[in-house]
């Protein structure tokens, strides 16, 4: 029991720190953004389960073996008040830590979700009053402002928004490329992919691996949307749109912004070779195994 608990603890810490950091700096995710996103999700889920499970497995040890038997025993002990003799302070502390961690992770996720939904509702209310539908593209709205910005408001009642500055700066074909990019975000619900990483990055900003994860996932989601956009327009239209908008964006004066933009342009114009089918399959199986490992350990541990 103690060995399983310790192994889960080490496993969880490895995923939260060195593994996340290595993956955030790796080059290959640009060759398979979807696979990399699945791996990130598996790492997040598996790491959380392992850390919470570690405390549970250790703390519930005195109640029997395996976990499926220990849980009913623990409930029975709590109702009758007859605690096993082996139950010590260490076990109680481990249970408490597991409980607090689980509660914290869930509470932060819910809090960020509520805040996000509120921000979106407020934004959508204003948008529906201020933006005018754009007849050329059903579902798109135009906001009367000279700074070029294109974005989408995800959700069940999603909105696709262009500022008047975009229409001034871009050719119609480039506008189509921008819209294809935004539609990919909406259709694949990238907001839901990003949300847990934003939430957990905020709960432990001192864990560098979590912050790296948040940034890496945000970048991967953009790569994926770029890939979808290039499939339905041409590469030069998409890069043209990025260049024109980048030149006019308020952030353009910052060097790191132009560096990031150059990175993205490079990847669109000279896409790295996609990973082979075998490696992609292996990656997805690996992600599944990553989640299965702590679950199995907790249930049998």
């Amino acid at each position, binding site marked *: 029991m103690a060995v399983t608990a310790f192994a889960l603890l080490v496993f969880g810490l490895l995923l939260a720190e060195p593994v996340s950091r290595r993956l*955030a*700096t790796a080059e290959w995710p640009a060759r398979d953004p979807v696979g990399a996103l699945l791996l990130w999700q598996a790492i997040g889920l598996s790491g959380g389960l392992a850390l919470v499970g570690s405390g549970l497995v250790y703390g519930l040890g005195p109640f029997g073996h395996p976990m499926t038997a220990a849980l009913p025993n623990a409930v029975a002990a709590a109702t009758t008040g007859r605690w096993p003799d082996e139950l010590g302070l260490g076990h109680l502390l481990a249970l408490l830590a597991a409980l607090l961690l689980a509660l914290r992770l869930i509470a932060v996720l819910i809090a*960020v979700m509520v*805040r*996000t939904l509120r*921000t*979106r509702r*407020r*934004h959508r*209310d*204003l*948008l*529906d*009053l*201020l933006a005018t539908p754009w007849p050329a593209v059903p579902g798109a709205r135009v*906001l*009367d*402002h000279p*700074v070029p*910005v*294109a*974005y*989408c*408001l*995800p959700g069940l009642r999603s909105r696709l*928004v262009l*500022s008047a500055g975009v229409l001034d700066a871009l050719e119609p074909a480039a506008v189509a490329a921008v819209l294809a*990019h*935004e539609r990919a*975000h*909406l259709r694949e619900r990238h*907001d839901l992919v*990003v*949300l847990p990483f*934003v939430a957990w*990055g*905020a709960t432990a900003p001192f864990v*560098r691996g979590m*912050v*790296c994860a948040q*940034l890496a996932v*945000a*970048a991967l*989601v*953009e790569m994926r*949307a770029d890939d979808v956009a290039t499939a339905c327009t041409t590469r030069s239209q998409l890069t043209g*749109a*990025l260049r024109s*908008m*980048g030149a006019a*964006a*308020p*952030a353009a004066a*910052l060097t*790191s*912004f132009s*560096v*990031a*933009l150059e990175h*993205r342009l490079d990847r669109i114009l000279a896409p790295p070779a996609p990973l082979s089918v075998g490696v992609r399959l292996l990656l997805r199986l690996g992600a599944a195994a990553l989640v299965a490992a702590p679950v199995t350990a907790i249930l049998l541990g």
Partner: protein
Amino acid sequence: MVIVPRLGELEKAVMEALWSADAPVTARDVQDALADRHLATTTVLTVLGRLERKGLVTRERAGRAHRYRSVASREDHVATLMRDALDATPDRGAALARFLGSMPADERAALRDLLD
């Protein structure tokens, strides 16, 4: 056939009326401003109530009626939306997704600092 205008569209029209008015106006004034729509007073009050709940309109008592005014000008609201759209903090990132804000300067810099 009677065409029932969508509430959202009515809200837009009422806001336009409030924005083009120089001073706070009564529901009756709004109704007159939108005379071509033949709205019932209760409809106008319903729409104003919805806008008030959304925090876009405030009202003050004026004798037996209420006078309504918009909380901010049209330009201020557009500026708010643009700020939301251009603000690249992670929290906002979860709320919106934008074409250029994807790898914002400060986040890239933060990532590099962390990894160096």
